[in-house]
C-alpha cells in the first residue's frame, strides 16, 4: 500500500520501522489471554500490531472499535516473550494509546474505571503499582495510558467501585463460575490452580479435547492477570464446591510484573490460612508457589506435589 497522508499519530510514528519488521508470524497468539478467551484472531496481539500499522499509515480510521483493540491489553507481555522478531509490542500499544487519548478515544478496554459509588477513600490511588489512579476533577480517575489492567485497584476497593469492565474471562465472577463448572462436571476433580499470566500459562490449548481424554482430570488451571488481584471470595469459592485444595502460582519475590502483586497475594493467603486453621481445615490445602516466567517444568512439578499432598490428606470432611 502506498503511504497516505500522515495522521496525528506522533507517538506511534517512531515505531514505523518496527511495525514493518514484525513478520506477522502470529506466534504471539500462543499465550495471549484475550485470544484464548474470545478465540478471535482480531483480538490477538498480531491484530493490534496490524491495527497500529493501519492507524499510522492512514489505512484504518481511528474509530472507537479500532481504539478498543489497542486498549484491550493486560500487559502480561507474553506476546513479547513469544515474538520471533523481538518486537516490544506493549510499548507500541502504549504509544498508540497516547495518540488515541489525545484524539479523545480513551477506551476503556481493559483499563479500570470508577463507579459512582466511589467513596474517594484513595486506597486504590495508593495501591496502584503503575500510578495510574489519581484524584481528578471528576473524583477518582484512571490514566488509560498508564493503567496496565492488573486489577489490584479492583481487589483493594472496599466499595466495589473500581472495576475492569472488559475482563475477558479473568474477573472474579468469571473465574468462580468456571472453576465451579469444572468441579461439578469432573468426578475426579480435586484442585483448582490460579496462575498469574506472567508466572505461567499453559501452552496454546486452543483446541477442545474429547471427553475420554479429560474426564479423569483432577485439577484445572485458570489464569488471573496478576496474583495481586486474587480475592478471598475467589480463593474460597472452590472449597464450597468440594475442592480438596487451591494452588496459587505467582511471580517470584521482586520479579512481579505489577511490582507487588505477588506479596499482596502471599499476605492474603497467609490470612486465609489462619482462618482455615481456626475452623479445623488444614491450611496446606491453600498454597502459593513462586514460578519464574514461563518455567513450565517447575510449574508442573509444583502442581504434582500439591496433588500428591491432597491425595494424602483426602477430601475435606
Amino acid at each position, binding site marked *: *500500500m*502506498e*503511504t497516505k497522508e500522515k495522521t496525528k499519530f506522533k507517538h506511534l510514528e517512531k515505531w*514505523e*520501522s518496527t511495525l*514493518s*519488521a*514484525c*513478520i*506477522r*508470524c*502470529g*506466534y504471539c*497468539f*500462543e499465550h495471549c489471554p484475550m485470544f484464548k478467551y474470545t*478465540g*478471535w*484472531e*482480531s483480538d490477538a496481539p*498480531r*491484530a493490534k500490531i*496490524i*491495527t497500529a*500499522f*493501519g492507524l499510522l*499509515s492512514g*489505512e*484504518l*480510521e481511528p*474509530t472507537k*472499535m*479500532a481504539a478498543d*483493540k489497542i486498549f484491550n491489553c493486560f500487559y502480561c507481555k507474553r506476546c513479547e516473550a*513469544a*515474538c*520471533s*522478531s*523481538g518486537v516490544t509490542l506493549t510499548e507500541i500499544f502504549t504509544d498508540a494509546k497516547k495518540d488515541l487519548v489525545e484524539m479523545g478515544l480513551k477506551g476503556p478496554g481493559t483499563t479500570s474505571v470508577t463507579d459512582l459509588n466511589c467513596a474517594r477513600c484513595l486506597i486504590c490511588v495508593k495501591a496502584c503499582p503503575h500510578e495510574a489512579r489519581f484524584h481528578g476533577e471528576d473524583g477518582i480517575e484512571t490514566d488509560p495510558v498508564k493503567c496496565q489492567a492488573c486489577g489490584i485497584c479492583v481487589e483493594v476497593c472496599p466499595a466495589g467501585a473500581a472495576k475492569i469492565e472488559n475482563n475477558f474471562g479473568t474477573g472474579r465472577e468469571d473465574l468462580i463460575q468456571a472453576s465451579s463448572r469444572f468441579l461439578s462436571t469432573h468426578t475426579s476433580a480435586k484442585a483448582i490452580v490460579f496462575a498469574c499470566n506472567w508466572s505461567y500459562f499453559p*501452552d*496454546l*490449548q*486452543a*483446541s*477442545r*479435547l*474429547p471427553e*475420554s*481424554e479429560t474426564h479423569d482430570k483432577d485439577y484445572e488451571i485458570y489464569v488471573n492477570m496478576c496474583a495481586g488481584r486474587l480475592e478471598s471470595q475467589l480463593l474460597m469459592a472452590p472449597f464450597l464446591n468440594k475442592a480438596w485444595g487451591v494452588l496459587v502460582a505467582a511471580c517470584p519475590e521482586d520479579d512481579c510484573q505489577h511490582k507487588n502483586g505477588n506479596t499482596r497475594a502471599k499476605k492474603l493467603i497467609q490470612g486465609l490460612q489462619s482462618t482455615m486453621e481456626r475452623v479445623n481445615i488444614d491450611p496446606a490445602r491453600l498454597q502459593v508457589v513462586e514460578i519464574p516466567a514461563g518455567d513450565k517444568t517447575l510449574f508442573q512439578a509444583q502442581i504434582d506435589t500439591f496433588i500428591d499432598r491432597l491425595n494424602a490428606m483426602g477430601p475435606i470432611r
Partner: protein
Amino acid sequence: MIHQKGIPMKSVDESKLREIFGENNVKTDPSDLYAFGSDSSVHHAMPWAVVRPDNTEQVQKLMVYANEALIPVIPRGGGSGMCGQTVPIYGGIILDMKHMNRILEINLPDVYCRVEPGVVDDDLNLALKPHGMFYPPTPASSRIATIGGEIANNASGVRSVKYGATRDAVLGMKVVMPSGDLVTLGAHTRVEASGYQLHKLMVGSEGTLGIVVEATLNFVPIPEYRCMGIANFDHLSHAGAAIGAIMSSGATPSMLELVDSVAIKAVNKTMNLGLKEVAASLIFEADGMVKEAVDYEINKMKEICKKNHGSDITTSYDPKERAKIFMGRKKLFPALSKYDDSLSSTSLADDMAVPYSKMAEMAGKIHEVAKKNNIIMTAYGHCGSGCMHTKILMDTKRPDQWASAKKAITEIYEYVRSVNGTTSAEHGIGLSKAESFKVEKADSLKLLQTIKQALDPNNILNPGKLMQAPEDWVTATGLRYSVNN
C-alpha cells in the same frame, strides 16, 4: 471466471450471515476486517465479512448462500501462511475455521485420530503425548498452525525428511464442497486403492476446491532416543557434497539442516551467540527406539561429514546440548528481523526445493543473485528434504528495493526450474509464487483449471490463487508495508 479485478465491490447479506452463525460469530467492522486482511505474507486486501462456524452444517449453509450469491469464500486457519493464501484478493467472506477445534477421537488400536480443521498442531501433539505418540509433519509454526491450514498447504517441517509431509499423514477427510454438499474422502485405513484418492487432491489445494471439516490423521510413536550433531564447512560445495552423500548412503536422518554464512553472521550480529563464522554448517539428527540403531545412523552421518571436509563435529543425546546445537538455527528468524533497523525480513521466494546434489549450488546462486541485485538474502533449510528457505532483507519503503527483489526472485526461480527443482516445498503458492508456479506447471495449467472448474464451477472458493493468481505478485494486492511514492 467471475472474479476479476475492477468489478464493483459486492456486498454481503449480513443478516443472512448472522442467521447462520449467530450474532457473536460474524465480524463486519472495518477494524476487524483490516486485521483479517493479511497473513504472514507481504499481501493485504480487505474482506467483506468474517464468519466463524462451530459445525459442519453452518459451513454447508454458508456455501449454499455464497454459491448462489457468487460471493468468494476464503477458508482460514491460524493465518500463518507466508504466500497470501488467505488474503482475499477479490474481497469476499473469510471463513475462520479456528472455532471448529475439537479433537474428536484418538484411536490407539487403529493408530489414527479424527480432528476438526481448527485444531492447532501443537495441541494435537500435547493430546497425543500421554499416549507416547506424535503427529509428525510439524511445521515451525506448529504453535498456531491449524490442521486445516496444514492440509491446505501440505505443510511440512524439519522432521519431514524422515516422517514425510502432511499429505503422507492424511488418511481421509470430510469436505464441504462449494455446492454445500458434504463428501467423505479417503478411509480410516493405512492403505486405500478404492478409486481416485481425492483426499490427497485436497491436500495442497489451498482452499480452492473444498472446505475440510474433519480430517483423519495417522500418528507415530515418539522415539526413545534422539541424537543431534553439527559439522562446519569452509566451502558450501563441501556441505553440499555431504548432503548428497548422507541422503544416498541409506542413512535415515530425522533432521538435516543447512545454515549458510549469511545466516550465521546474522545470528552472531544480533544474538551474540559466537558461532564460528564458516561458509556453512550442517545440523543432523537421528532418532529411534534402540540406542544402538541411533548410534549407527549418527556415526554414519558423522563419518560422511568428516570425509567431506567437515570440521568441529560434535554430537549429543543430551537435550540441553541438543538445544545448544540447534540454537543458531532456532534464532535465525529473530536474528534476520533484527539484522538492521532499516531492513525488514520478507517472505518471498522462501521455500523452493531442488535435488540434493544442487543444494549447495542453490545456496551459492542465492548469494550471487542477492549481490547482483543489491539486497540481502540468506540460505538455510531442510536440506534433507531438498527444501531451501530464504528471506529477503530489504528497506520496504523503497520502491527500487521491491523492483530488485522481484528481479532477484525471477532469477532464482529460473535457476530452480533449470535444475528440475520446484517452486514451493512446504509453504504453498498463494499469490507470491504464482509467477514461477505458472511457468513450472505450464503444460498442466489447463488441467488444473479443469479440475477447479469441475469442483467449483462458480469459482467462489478462494478465487485468484494458484493458477488463477496474477503474475505480478507486487501489484496482485496492496502490500502490507508502507511504500514511498
